[in-house]
């Protein structure tokens, strides 16, 4: 995944959600993301793709950053500017080298390794790095409001 210094984009803050890294929270989180994507003007297809990307990002935090310990917090920031929705998923697990977060080669009949691949294909930009505060790993994603642009 692209190595980037994660900076706060110039954008309007919509909402900020904090929740424990537990799989049973994800349906609620997705409902909020769905609602925010619609608020930003995305149609059903665009909304689905944003929800899936955030779902995969949180899943990676649950499985890899916290290795299934359900008590670590996940922070989800949702922002928008005129062009895009911006979503930021932060975990407070040990530092991860951005180069370690790579989609595996897509092989037809092998479960797993799809999450990062999905995220990169669903969103227009994806950047993984340390948070500006130095605490936690951040996956920042954005998607253009009008994909024809």
């Amino acid at each position, binding site marked *: 995944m692209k190595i980037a210094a994660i900076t706060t984009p110039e954008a309007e803050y919509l909402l900020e959600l904090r929740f424990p890294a537990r*799989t*049973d929270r*994800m*349906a609620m989180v*997705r409902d909020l993301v769905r609602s925010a994507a619609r608020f930003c003007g995305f149609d059903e*297809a665009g909304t*689905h*793709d944003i*929800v*899936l990307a955030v*779902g*995969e990002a949180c*899943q990676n935090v*649950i*499985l890899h950053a916290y290795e299934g310990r359900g008590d670590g917090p996940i922070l989800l920031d949702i922002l928008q500017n005129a062009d895009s929705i911006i979503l930021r998923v932060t975990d407070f697990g040990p530092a991860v080298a951005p180069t370690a977060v790579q989609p595996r080669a*897509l092989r*037809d*009949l*092998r*479960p*797993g390794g*799809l*999450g990062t*691949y*999905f995220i990169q*294909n*669903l969103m227009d930009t994806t950047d993984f790095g340390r948070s500006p505060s130095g605490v936690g790993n951040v996956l920042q994603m954005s998607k253009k409001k009008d994909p024809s642009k």
Partner: protein
Amino acid sequence: MSEAVREVNGNLVVSLTGEIDLDRAPEARRLLLDCVKRSKDVLVDLSAVTYIDSSGIASLVEALQWAKQRGTDLCLVAVSPQALRVFELARLDKVFAIHPDLDAALAGEN
């Protein structure tokens, strides 16, 4: 979910429903593998799946692998648009046989 399995013409029809995510994928996986173990062809109805992610897809891929090892078929039926989008993304829409509805799937079996 056990009432989600019924037998039609000697095949097992399994219906998955709702959101198949990391939370519910283990349950879907168990259901699918139990069906495959019965050594019949399995038709997985995805018409009522409103969301599926990589973990749900992984359960289906694993079930397909098990079926292939036993020499039985596992195919997808009436895949909802949301689910189809994800199979296409993963380029698995050519790996799984996908039928528009149960009749087409049963005809395809013969």
